């Protein structure tokens, strides 16, 4: 009878062990996440977590790898920067990444009862991911338009390309809208927000030096007056100074 009991106990243990599986599944050992991985991960993060369950955070050693992977710019760069791949293919992938990113922006929006963001670092990392991605996405789109055009110098082609750049700049302005909610960020969150302005807006201007930044300057000036954080004011001021200098050099 003892043997039978041992056998039954072992069997029970086997069943219990086999039923235990990770609640959330992310391909963390995968070197690069592709669009499909982003689709699965974003869906899991948006709908797979219970309401009171903590989402992956940079400050949580166990789950930080998930958010690090999610916001790793290499994931899109490895395809979009690969000149040996076809332009149409890269453009297609960029568009898919962009669609996934739009879904990602809804993951970390939760706030507490004082309207403070619960996941400010993660929220901003996702925004930064989108800023980096969009430069590539719009650039590839414009390259495709120029390539497909009979006359790349035609006024119609230039109009479409400039319209795309204008959309890109407007998308960047959305990032600055966060400054209207700066009180929802802690001091360190405001610092990250400011660092985002410094890094990504400079990249945008470097990439499109001749774009029309009038709207950006106006918005930056208004927000500069409104912001109470020096970590945000400083990069805004630098941005305005750079764009003003560009504008004055243009007028000569």
């Amino acid at each position, binding site marked *: 009878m003892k043997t039978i009991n041992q056998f039954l106990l072992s069997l029970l243990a086997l069943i219990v062990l*086999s039923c235990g599986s990770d609640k959330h599944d992310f391909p963390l050992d995968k070197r690069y996440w592709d669009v499909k991985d982003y689709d699965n991960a974003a869906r899991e993060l948006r709908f797979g977590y219970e309401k009171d369950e903590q989402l992956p955070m940079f400050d949580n050693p166990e789950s930080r790898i998930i958010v690090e992977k999610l916001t790793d710019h290499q994931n899109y760069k490895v395809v979009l920067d690969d000149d040996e791949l076809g332009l149409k293919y890269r453009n297609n992938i960029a568009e898919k990444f962009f669609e996934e990113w739009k879904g990602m922006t809804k993951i970390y929006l939760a706030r507490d009862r004082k309207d403070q963001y619960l996941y400010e670092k993660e929220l901003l990392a996702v925004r930064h991911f989108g800023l980096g991605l969009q430069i590539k996405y719009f650039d590839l789109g414009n390259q495709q338009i120029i390539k497909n055009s009979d006359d790349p110098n035609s006024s119609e082609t230039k109009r479409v390309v400039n319209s795309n750049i204008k959309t890109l700049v407007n998308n960047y302005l959305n990032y600055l809208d966060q400054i209207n909610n700066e009180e929802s960020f802690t001091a360190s969150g405001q610092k990250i927000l400011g660092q985002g302005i410094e890094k990504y807006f400079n990249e945008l201007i470097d990439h499109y030096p001749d774009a029309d930044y009038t709207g950006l300057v106006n918005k930056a000036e208004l927000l500069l007056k409104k912001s109470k954080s020096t970590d945000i004011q400083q990069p805004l001021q630098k941005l305005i100074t750079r764009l003003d200098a560009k504008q004055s050099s243009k007028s000569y």
Partner: protein
Amino acid sequence: MSESQIVVLIVLLFYSPVFYHLVLAIKEDREGVRKVLKRFYRYLKISFLCLFILLIGTLIISHTNYFDYEKPIKFERYDQITFENFRGIELFKKSLYGNERFAYVVTSIDSEIEEDGVVVQSLFHPSRSFVYKKNVFSKELLSHEKYHFKITELYARKAKKEISSIEHIDKPQIRNIIRKAKNEENSFQKQYDHDTFHSYVYSEQNRYEKEIDSMLVLLSDYMNPKVEYHEND
């Protein structure tokens, strides 16, 4: 239901006659218990044996598909290899990093020390190589997998080059050269998969292809599998 749960369910179903007799044993009166227990142990023994045989068979077929066997292919037939030659069965691994459309190739450096020389050749093992679908049309996937075979050939040629430079026949030294080539090949194969991320990083894939092709050309003198001894006394 997860795969492990399915396995547990199969095992439980497999052992259902055993459980049946176990329940009977418990229900039986004391005098009949011994008899029923004996039957129970007999069923247990037989079923364990069957399960063991089934497991061994599964492992063997998973390693080499003897149901659809094709003998190893030499490098001279490299250009003829297609996914039709990938005859292996994959019973356990269902995806590679979540991607169900995957393939893998098994190659080896085969060697034989003979009286007048050493035969070192790279082989592709069709019945151990796997593709998720044989009629898949993916030049990139096939090219990536076939370059694994080229890497094996590259290290076979490197070994032959080193062997041909030996002045006095020394079998342990030859074995050592071949062992070293195999180890280096293994590391290179891993590096290739890592850098190209199984062909996902296209520029890296191209870079490797060019590099491997040029190295093979450089070692084209060692294309012949056999290295003959030219001992200088």
